């Protein structure tokens, strides 16, 4: 797909990845599968930020966590740095962790309240590297400066820091390992606009200074638009549209992407209007509709949508999974 335009190899490549969770009844018997991620293929190129958007429950976090190794894939491949990592275990898997890191919604919350900042920052280096103490200290100080905190903060406990500073320490902790790819899972949800803006600026600055690649998971389209060069839109475990951010936001082809964009509250634009077409809520992922999964809410749906699942095919500059795009 994008391979022609990009001479290098992708940093991360996911092929037909699936992750199912069993659903059980009251007696523990399996009654079916919840198909959280159901056949997703995408590539993340070095230095880029790939956005992954969708409503809650669409499987975007499950995808991120499966790539990270928190869940084992039910099917499909995860190639990272040219190596299949989906089924690695133990020591081999830990070696990957230095290059691949995951940032939760609030990275500050993963600090141990009984540890000083310094100890929290040394920990990943102790686990993953054999660097001597002096070298570790140098590295930690450099990274602390990069996230915008003074050295004096090394001697503080997390509760002595503000929420924003805790967040920075959490990020510093991840950066000490010099990862290549960072999966950011809803890194700004729940933040105020002004704080969100400074966190996003920090991500951008760190990306430049540490040559990072981001997989940016978010439900907030405005944030994704500001941060990402390419965007994948997920609906009920499948990618429905994938392409350049400019193209996807400028001329969305999939009816779901269009509705999603129309639903974003904007300033100076449209007020609540009748044009917005998306009614109802996403169906239960335990019981996905046949054919195209979006058809139950789609204004364009016809018989073929129930019968056949549309494959991702190139339309304009994007890949779109729709019979009528």
């Amino acid at each position, binding site marked *: 797909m994008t391979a022609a335009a990009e001479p290098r190899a992708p940093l991360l490549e996911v092929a037909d990845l699936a992750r199912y969770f069993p659903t059980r009844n009251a007696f523990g018997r399996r009654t079916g599968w919840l198909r959280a991620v159901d056949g997703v293929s995408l590539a993340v190129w070095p230095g880029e930020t790939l956005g992954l958007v969708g*409503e809650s429950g669409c499987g975007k976090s499950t995808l991120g966590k499966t790539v990270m190794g928190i869940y084992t894939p039910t099917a499909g491949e995860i190639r990272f740095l040219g190596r299949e990592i989906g089924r690695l275990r133990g020591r081999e898997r830990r070696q990957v962790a230095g290059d691949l890191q995951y940032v939760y919604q609030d990275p500050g919350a993963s600090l141990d309240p009984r540890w000083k900042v310094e100890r929290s920052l040394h920990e990943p280096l102790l686990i993953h590297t054999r660097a001597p103490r002096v070298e570790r200290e140098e590295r930690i100080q450099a990274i602390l400066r990069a996230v915008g905190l003074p050295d004096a903060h090394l001697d503080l406990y997390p509760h002595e820091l503000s929420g924003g500073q805790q967040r920075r320490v959490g990020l510093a902790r991840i950066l000490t390992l010099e990862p290549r790819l960072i999966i950011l899972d809803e890194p700004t949800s729940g933040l105020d*606009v002004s704080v969100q*803006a400074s966190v996003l600026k920090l991500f951008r600055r760190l990306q430049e200074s540490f040559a990072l690649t981001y997989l940016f998971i978010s439900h907030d389209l405005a*944030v994704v638009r500001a941060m990402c060069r390419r965007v994948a839109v997920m609906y009920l475990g499948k990618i429905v549209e994938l392409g350049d951010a400019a193209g996807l*936001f400028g001329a969305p082809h999939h009816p779901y992407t269009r509705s999603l964009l129309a639903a974003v509250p904007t300033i100076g634009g449209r007020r609540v209007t009748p044009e*917005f077409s998306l009614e109802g*809520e996403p169906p239960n992922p335990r019981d996905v509709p046949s054919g195209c999964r979006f058809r139950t809410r789609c204004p364009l749906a016809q018989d073929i949508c129930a019968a056949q699942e549309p494959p991702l095919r190139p339309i304009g500059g994007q890949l779109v999974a729709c019979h009528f795009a």
Partner: protein
Amino acid sequence: MSELLSVRGLTVEFATDQGVARVLDRISLDIGQGEVVGLVGESGCGKTTLARTILGILPPGAGLIRGGEVHFKGRDLLREDPSVVNDLVRGRGITFIPQDPWSSLSPLFPVGAQIMDLMKWKSPRREAAGPPASGGWPALFRRYPGARRRADREAVLEILRAVQFPEPARALSRLPYEFSGGQRQRLMIAMALLPRPDLIIADEPTTALDVTIQAQILRLLRALVKERGVSVLFTTHDLGTAHEICDRIVVMYAGQEMESALTDVFFDRPAHPYTRRLIESVLSLDGEIQDIPGEVPSLIEPPSGCRFHPRCDYATRECGARRPDTHTVEGEHHVRCYHPLGAARPGA
């Protein structure tokens, strides 16, 4: 416009381990009949405390009202007999839509039972009880007359249809967990409308929802309140949401109100430097990232005068000395600033 609710110089403090935090500092606010007013500001600026003070549900013992008045339909809610406020105002004249419907519904009872429980006391068909007669049964044991119960049940079904709740009659016997977040929020809107209030206080009612569901809920809420002529105080930290639903917007910063203007004026010609910074920090779908330098101040040792002055580009000595008075820019556009930005804003 005749004011339905009028808050004057309201000051609320919380005692904390570190000291006394003045969470609301001489706040004034008006809401007209049938008006949807947005109260916007960052987390910790006092939006929720203001909403709770108006409703009279500050956490007992912790929140201390240090001064000010809250006038609602000719009553000063802070000085009125609490039992009268409870009987006529809270849950009847003024109702509430919470941010998180989970914490307002008991997981153990069917939603129908919970709605009827509300209607037993807050139905518009219930006549005012007056002060409790001494020696009688406690209010809890009073009967729910059958005729009113039947009429109330009809009203409940009607309102559930109005909020587009699927299969209202069957839904009443279900438990809250059987509904999605969007449906629970529809239920909350229905419960807020049932007592036929004059004012609904909606505290970030769509923050926890996805954009598509949020758009549906906002559209529904605005249509329902406009149809019924109900006023709304809508708190949110999302300016986009405020733009979608509000007639007028009041912006708060660190416990002080900074500016109040009709929605279009608010976004086109903001007069307060903070308002302008806040609007600029919103990411548009094609936008650049702009933040507000500095951090939100501590409310325990807040900056003197205008609380925004340490982060303000236009601050002068008088800003730190005394809080500016309200200055009327034009008509309904009020700002508390010594150096309001001129009407001419490049590009606006």
